[in-house]
């Protein structure tokens, strides 16, 4: 309570709202040429739980062009209703237009919570929406709960320093906005027998700045298992020393049906792309097996592997902190151990055949 007293309403931003006017949980459903984005569906499972605790409804909100075809999707995945805005003005994606449309809908329907996926687009739309509505926003949450006394959303995220989770509330402002990290929550089961209300919203042309899309260049990427879903992860750090060194990591990953990852230093050195970074500023993972090679074990990295079932560390420095965070440690130069390990695995596989 003392905490809430510290806040004073800023009238410059608009008159104080009445929290009781706001009901309902919304999930912003991101779509593109490929259909509905999985990260949005993941939020429907958490959204369902929050709506049930609040004894209110859960809605998916779809904004775009030619998107009416997806209207049933949020409902199949647990929503009570879908609010869909299908309009040629959204033919070209522009964050300001989406944010302003979402803010318009929020002013009209007054939901108490809006969750967005922390995808690149979601992270672009959310802060502008929050700024337009003059409400608080929390980024990259990994957990949510409800304070039953106040109906406040408890937004849980790792703050600086790792090993801690901050619980954040928006006690006086509505709606409460948050983005959530992809692949933290599971996609709920799809049930095509579920039915719900579909609200087709018409929005007059939203006034945005005249931004023109000139060109789109697809990046051809191999379909890789997302780190967050991998059972086996082989990760390298500064100790790998060279980009060539990472080839050994890749080879080992291939033999174990694993995925390659690395530390911030490995990313900074350009040995692996940023999407493969594990740690506080990268991703948190939950594999069965995590093999850390040439990784010293800075807390910001180890933070990301808390939920690994078993951690193996290979490092030539016996004092490296990683050994304190590993189940099995090998004190050796990785160049001496990893090729032999690969050889051994290959031999075992052949013997089995």
């Amino acid at each position: 309570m003392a905490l809430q007293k510290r806040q004073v309403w800023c009238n410059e931003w608009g008159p104080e709202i009445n929290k009781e006017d706001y009901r309902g949980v919304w999930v912003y459903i991101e779509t593109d040429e490929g259909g509905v984005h999985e990260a949005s569906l993941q939020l429907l499972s958490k959204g369902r739980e929050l709506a049930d605790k609040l004894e209110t409804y859960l809605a998916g909100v779809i904004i775009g062009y030619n998107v009416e075809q997806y209207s049933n999707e949020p409902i199949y995945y647990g929503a009570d209703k879908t609010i869909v805005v299908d309009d040629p003005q959204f033919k070209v994606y522009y964050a300001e237009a989406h944010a302003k449309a979402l803010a318009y809908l929020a002013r009209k329907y007054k939901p108490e919570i809006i969750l967005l996926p922390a995808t690149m687009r979601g992270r672009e739309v959310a802060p502008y929406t929050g700024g337009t509505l003059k409400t608080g926003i929390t980024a990259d949450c990994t957990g949510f709960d409800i304070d039953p006394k106040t109906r406040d959303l408890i937004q849980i995220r790792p703050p600086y320093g790792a090993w801690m989770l901050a619980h954040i509330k928006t006690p006086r402002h509505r709606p409460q906005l948050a983005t959530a990290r992809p692949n933290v929550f599971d996609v709920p089961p799809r049930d095509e027998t579920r039915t719900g209300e579909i609200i087709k919203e018409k929005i007059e042309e939203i006034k945005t700045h005249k931004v023109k899309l000139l060109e789109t260049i697809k990046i051809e990427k191999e379909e890789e298992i997302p780190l967050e879903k991998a059972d086996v992860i082989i990760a390298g750090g500064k100790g790998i020393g060279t980009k060539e060194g990472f080839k050994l990591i890749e080879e080992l990953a291939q033999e174990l049906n694993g995925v390659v990852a690395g530390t911030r230093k490995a990313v900074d050195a350009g040995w692996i792309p940023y999407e493969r970074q594990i740690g506080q500023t990268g991703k948190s993972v939950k594999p069965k097996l995590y093999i850390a090679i040439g990784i010293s074990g800075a807390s910001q990295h180890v933070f990301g592997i808390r939920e690994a079932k078993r951690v193996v560390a290979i490092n030539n420095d016996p004092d490296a902190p990683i050994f304190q965070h590993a189940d099995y440690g090998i004190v050796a130069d990785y160049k001496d151990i990893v090729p032999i390990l690969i050889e051994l695995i290959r031999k075992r596989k052949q013997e089995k055949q």
Partner: protein
Amino acid sequence: MPLKIVVPIKWIPNTSSVNIDPETGTLIRTNVPSVINPPDLNALELALQLKDKYGGTVTAITMAPPNAILALEHAIGMGADKGILITDRVFAGADTLATSYTLAKAVEKIGDFDLVITGQETLDSSTAHIAGQMASWLNLPFMYYVTEAEYNEENKTLIVKRLLEDKYEKYELPLPAVISAAMKTNKPRHVRLIHKIRAKVEKPIITWTNQDLQLKPECIGLKGSPTIVTKIEFMGIVPRKREIIDGKTPEEIAEKLLEKLIEEKLVEL
């Protein structure tokens, strides 16, 4: 028309040098040096490249305690023309909405600007909120994750290339605008002595307090922040076996490890 660019930056503890005490599970934070938030260096570099190409000025601003003047000095050392330190106890404890509001008001006070370039996110809190929120306060067009920018002087627009998960996009934005520079996509220039010497003479860093901005206390700092941290939950370190696998030869060690992994069904061969 030369480009007048404002770059908001942040002075943060160097996260990669923080370690955890395995026995107590507490953070070892002694002598953690502070640095400019690394993605802000990419923003400064993008701004300076534009200035090199089209002329104009780059002004670095930061809302922070007085010691963050070091961040502004670094920016000036890279080639920024001016620095504004926005510092006042009443700004302390601000969340992203209150921070972006204060920064937006500072940019309005600067007045004559064409472009605001922020870093993609800060490494100490990773919200990526400030650019979007500033754009909404200033009612300007905005674009995240920009890797390259070109100025079209004739139309007074900016052509930006930006990087998403699976594609590059090229957009044309009317100026003034707010953009965020994609992380790690350019090589920030080093601090040069000549700029430092110039700074000694020109004294390009000024300080603004709330006397200068005249913002209502209930709209800034902790008081003006809609979000509050209500609890910090310490997660504790995960208990691990901490078993060292030893052996006379690498072969023996590798064999022992593989046995364990197979036994525990962690790998399938």
